[in-house]
């Protein structure tokens, strides 16, 4: 479904992505791993069109989206959960959900249906429906930003750090919600710092190193090679994932 071919992205003259190639098949959950500063967020941003690759191509459903604008890419069915949530703080919870809803095309579910889908996954949002997004707790904000992305992301979700800084109970809730959606067939590309979480959700992963793909491996195989985990992710102890 998603094919990234040798993309090079710069911030000014800083050569951040130095030839990233990766693929995500329909229905898969693929993890993008690696320490900070390796280009994981930049990769997602480039796919989403928020930053444009200077070289290389991004294909979504066999269409070249490299030079498309972010809203055109979103409308193709890709949802984006940014690092730092980036909610519309001055809008209420329901209005935050309304924003992507306004850009859904014909044949999309109605407003009532969209809300129900979201409240079924994240019941606490129903309670906070008229509250200002900026006044929600951290966990609620993360749920809202995930819910918001799901409205647009009918086919694929790009997730940048699902659970950073959240309490274990909330982490559990979010992971379960995402697994539920994945079961319905949603394709997910997940950037995660926490290897435990990534291994629970993803079947394959790419480890980025200095703007390039250092390792490409199935999650099962990776878990069985602690020396790789240690080398690339600085993860020491024995990891039993599933």
């Amino acid at each position, binding site marked *: 479904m998603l094919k990234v071919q040798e993309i090079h992205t710069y911030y000014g003259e800083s050569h951040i992505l130095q030839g990233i190639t990766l693929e995500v098949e329909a229905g898969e959950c693929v993890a993008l791993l690696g320490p900070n500063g390796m280009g994981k967020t930049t990769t997602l941003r480039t796919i989403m069109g928020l930053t444009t690759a200077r070289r290389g191509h991004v294909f979504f459903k066999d269409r070249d989206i490299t030079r498309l*604008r*972010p*809203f055109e890419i979103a409308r193709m069915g890709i949802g984006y959960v940014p690092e730092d949530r980036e909610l519309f703080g*001055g*809008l209420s919870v329901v209005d935050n959900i309304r*924003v*992507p809803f306004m*850009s859904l095309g014909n044949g999309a579910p109605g407003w009532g249906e969209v809300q129900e889908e979201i409240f079924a996954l994240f019941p606490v949002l129903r309670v906070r429906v008229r509250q200002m997004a900026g006044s929600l707790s951290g966990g609620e904000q993360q749920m809202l930003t995930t819910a918001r992305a799901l409205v647009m992301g009918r086919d694929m979700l790009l997730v940048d750090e699902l659970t950073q800084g959240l309490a274990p109970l909330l982490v559990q809730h979010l992971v379960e919600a995402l697994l539920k959606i994945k079961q319905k067939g949603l394709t997910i590309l997940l950037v995660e710092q926490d290897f435990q979480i990534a291994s629970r959700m993803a079947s394959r992963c790419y480890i980025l190193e200095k703007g390039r793909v250092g390792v490409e491996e199935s999650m099962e195989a990776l878990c069985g090679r602690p020396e790789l985990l240690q080398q690339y992710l600085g993860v020491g102890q024995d990891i039993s994932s599933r």
Partner: protein
Amino acid sequence: MNLNFIILQALNGLTIAAIYVLLASGLTIVLGLQNIVNAAHGVFYMLGAYFSLTVVTRLGLDFWVSLPVAFAATALLGALLEILGIRSLVRWKRSNHHPMILTLGIALGAGEVVKMIWGAIPRMAEIPIILQGVMAVGPVSYPKYWMLVIGVTVLVMIGLWLFFNRTGLGILVRAVAMNNEMAQAMGTNAPRLNTWVFAFGTGLAGVAGVLAAPILSVDPHMGMELLLILFVVIILGGLGSLWGTVISAVAIGIVIAFGTAAFSGMVAKLMVFGAMIVVLIIKPYGLFATGAAVE
């Protein structure tokens, strides 16, 4: 200094404020949305006024029809400016400062073009016949037409409030103002929204011009003169804040009305600038600054 005097000057202040509000709204919304200073805003105001003078008076166009026509015409011109001038300039230069210089150049040039076509002598449009005369406002008599100007402005402001708070499109505009990138990542065609909003602002300026033509002097410098006060209005009110704009416009309008009546026009303007200095020392971002959001 009696009650009648106070009411009269208050009404004068409100009429002046009404024109300011119509103009400053467009300016502050665009600023909050795109971070662009449209120094040519006054040009659309001027065009509206001259439109009223020539087209309306000469062709005998009905006053009520002239308002939406002027709106459409100046909105269209504004859209052209936004697409051809501002959008391409921002993308080319990747900065928000160049459009300000471009629009400033347009403003200066437009004044000269208008001077060439219509001459520099100040004129005044005629008040439409049905609206001539006075009406009772409490204990005083006040020109009907001036009340109309206040009335139209109130309606427009109510409409804007409803738009931003009760319509989906209004929510989109606010979202883009808060976070352009994320709004786009959520499927919003932000560039097109920017154009529509910009055009609406200039359209409103054109309407203000038509409304002001029978009250204020119509001359090639009317745009530039007003621009200065407009910036005081939006800075005092807080950039991007509609409420702030309304409140500061009313405050400034009343200060100017009372100041002009009690002392002179010049003293009144000095008082306004003095007040601005004081307010900015206490609240550097204006009275109701909300960051770059439209509230």
